[in-house]
């Protein structure tokens, strides 16, 4: 079974803090993704990576950056957290057929 783990299930941060969300997959997948999920808006793609040190912007990259130093690990960084970044953050990885496997999610609250 594919396993995608995320470092925290719940996080509470203050406005202006730098926030790191970590994701690890154990299936040697090339591609990894970060989404956020909000009521009424669904899942939206923030960034993705198709190889180590490679990244591409998704649909809503503003206010976020990413890092992929190792194949199994993909980090999402909020440089200066804002209240409108309060959301559920979901990491996924995919193999060659395009099927994506999701982690359990991180609920982030920015006060």
């Amino acid at each position, binding site marked *: 079974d594919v396993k995608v783990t995320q470092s925290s299930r719940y996080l509470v941060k203050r406005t202006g803090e730098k926030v790191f969300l970590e994701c690890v997959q154990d299936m040697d997948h090339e*591609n990894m993704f970060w989404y956020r999920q909000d009521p009424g808006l669904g*899942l*939206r793609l923030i960034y993705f990576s198709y190889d180590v040190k490679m990244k591409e912007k998704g649909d809503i990259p503003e206010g976020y950056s990413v890092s992929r130093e190792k194949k199994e690990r993909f980090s999402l960084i909020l440089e200066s957290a804002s209240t409108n970044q309060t959301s559920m953050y979901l990491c996924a990885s995919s193999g060659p057929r*395009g099927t*994506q496997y999701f982690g*359990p999610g991180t609920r982030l609250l920015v006060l």
Partner: protein
Amino acid sequence: QKEVEQDPGPLSVPEGAIVSLNCTYSNSAFQYFMWYRQYSRKGPELLMYTYSSGNKEDGRFTAQVDKSSKYISLFIRDSQPSDSATYLCAMTFGRGGGGADGLTFGKGTHLIIQP
């Protein structure tokens, strides 16, 4: 554009009924189509995966894709209370055999199966 339309529900049906969930989309470039199930406060779980048009069956679940109409469906037979969840359709363009692009999701349909 990448819009995907999905009725948010809630859709409430009695146990044992056949459930039909649907999505429409506007971009004919989508090639790979998926259905995910998401329980409250959990990550989405892949249910079905289809490439291009056609039907695919897996147990009580059947996925249909009609690319000419830009319409995809998920049918659940003999529905159970444990099927109560939010169902998300998703699709992607297919670069790199499907794995190199992010997914575009519908907003999800909240399904309730009444015992």
